């Protein structure tokens, strides 16, 4: 029965990922520098605007994509040139196709005439594992449409670009929320976009089936902590845009990092004592944080988090 339940759980994961329903309206907030936050489309969306054009980090769920494009157009009428995906879940990539089509890719080289638009829409950047997770071998159904898939991927630990007079880094966080997570660091605006490695709405969702792990999650949170420099009296400075929830700074992330680390340590100690996953759940190792981070449904619940941490820390037989 447990195996059946586990099987149903795994089959339902993509659906669960969609369970973070959009609110119906897009809210636009300035983060700082050239970076804005769009909320209400499922996962958070960051938009960098400038003289050269528009760069978008994540695109929300598919059904909100028209409103997302309209919200971007209110910020800038310049061409949407780049999308970056922090990871592959559909509440962050569902709008890829529509936002890509609303943009363009400039081309040059020895072409006669006045051809400057390649006609393929904007480029979509992501870590290579995102493309692998969104595509499928010939004859099998891919988890996303061809038009939603990344067009440019990177294999190393980071990719750099320069756009709108700003250095931008995509920094791979291996085996954290998934195996394809990227932090996106806007160095002049001083904003880090984290994807679902950090959320303010629930416990982290460790997607074990897509290469996530608790140790990678903790490592990634520590990496963000080291990138963020607080401003006057330990506030502001580097702004952090989570995958879901509110704009944060280092003290906010610190509280979350402490929470995830402490719960990991508790479950690790319980495993050393020989406790089963059910015994660990019954001991409620998240008790002190449930009032704040236990999602009522979907993923990010205490039960899912404890189970994922337990499995992630248990050596595979």
């Amino acid at each position, binding site marked *: 029965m447990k195996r059946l339940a586990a099987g149903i759980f795994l089959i339902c994961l993509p659906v669960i990922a969609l369970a973070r329903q959009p609110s119906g309206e897009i809210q636009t907030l300035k983060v700082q520098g050239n970076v804005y936050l769009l909320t209400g489309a499922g996962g958070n969306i960051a938009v960098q605007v400038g003289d050269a054009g528009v760069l978008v980090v994540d695109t929300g769920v598919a059904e909100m994509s028209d409103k997302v494009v309209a919200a971007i157009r209110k910020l800038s009428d310049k061409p949407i040139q780049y999308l970056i995906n922090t990871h592959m879940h559909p509440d962050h990539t569902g709008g890829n196709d529509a936002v890509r089509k609303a943009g363009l890719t400039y081309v040059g080289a020895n072409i006669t005439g006045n051809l400057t638009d390649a006609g393929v829409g904007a480029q979509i950047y992501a870590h290579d594992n995102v493309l692998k997770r969104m595509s499928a071998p010939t004859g099998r159904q891919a988890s996303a449409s061809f038009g939603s898939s990344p067009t440019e991927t990177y294999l190393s630990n980071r990719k750099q670009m320069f756009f709108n007079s700003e250095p931008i880094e995509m920094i791979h966080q291996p085996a954290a929320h998934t195996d394809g997570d990227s932090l996106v660091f806007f160095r002049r605006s001083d904003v880090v976009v984290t994807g679902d490695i950090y959320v303010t709405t629930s416990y982290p969702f460790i997607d074990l089936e897509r290469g996530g792990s608790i140790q990678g999650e903790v490592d990634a949170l520590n990496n963000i902590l080291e990138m963020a420099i607080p401003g006057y009296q330990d506030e502001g400075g580097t702004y952090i845009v989570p995958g879901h929830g*509110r*704009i944060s700074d280092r003290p906010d992330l610190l509280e979350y*990092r402490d929470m995830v680390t402490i719960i990991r340590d508790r479950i690790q100690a319980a495993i050393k004592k020989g406790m089963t996953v059910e015994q660990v759940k019954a001991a409620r190792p998240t008790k002190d944080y449930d009032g704040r981070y236990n999602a009522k449904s979907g993923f990010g619940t205490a039960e899912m988090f404890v189970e994922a941490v337990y499995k992630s820390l248990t050596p595979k037989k």
Partner: protein
Amino acid sequence: MCCRYGVISLGLFIMVGSAFAQGPGGYNPIGPGVDLAGNWGPVMHEDAHERGPGPELANYLGLPITDGARSYGLAWDASRFTIPEHQCEVHIVSYIYRGPYNLRIWEERDPVSQKLIAIKQYIDNYQQTRTIWMDGRDHPPDAVLHTWMGFSTGKWEGNILSVYTTHLKWGWIRRNGLRHSDQATLVEHFIRHGDHLTHTTVLTDPATLTEPLIKTSDLVLRLQNGQTWLYPCEPVVEIVRPRGTVPHYLPGENPFIHEFADLYKIPVEAALGGAETAYPEYQSKLKGTAAK
């Protein structure tokens, strides 16, 4: 005829009345409330033990905390202060008035209309400048940054300044591991009695409190100038540890859980707080219970 004189008389009455209302130099409206401006200092003998050296570990007596908040407190290890990222953490607005500090209050008025825009406060502990908006503006969406001082709006209720604050970070309920979450909200009342100022706080947090936590503190007016300190803070590595270490006690392993209870010969159950420990009826529940 009588009516013509009547109209002229009425006109003169309005003109004279208007002139008096404007006063010399122009319109000077009498607004609600009282003037809180000045330098104020806390009366530190109130709850001096808690506010000075700090409360004992595992002393949660009288606090309406949830089971979860209690677990948080028992897991908290004071060594967490040694982590550089925690060292300059500011006392949250719901707690900062309990510490040693000086408080300067002033008004920010529109230079043309002299309408009150905000009441500003400088709290020299952690060098916090706080703005209490008095111009009727709304609180921002929840998705904007939460801060140590939060976002505050105020209104006069008679001569009482009442303030509502949202957008808080996690911060102390009591400086021994009890913290409220970033979903907490705060209601305050500033009440001036001559040279005394009473400050009442009502803290609400669904994540850590089962009912509102109410405290009052008193301040006195300080006429001597220079009553403001500076608080530069520079974090340093005090203990070299493996990356990402977070000091904490595993469940059931806090070695200080009996210390306060033993010192004052009260049951540990009482020392661990909860709403009922705040009320006199709890004494009858404890009767006959020997200190453990």
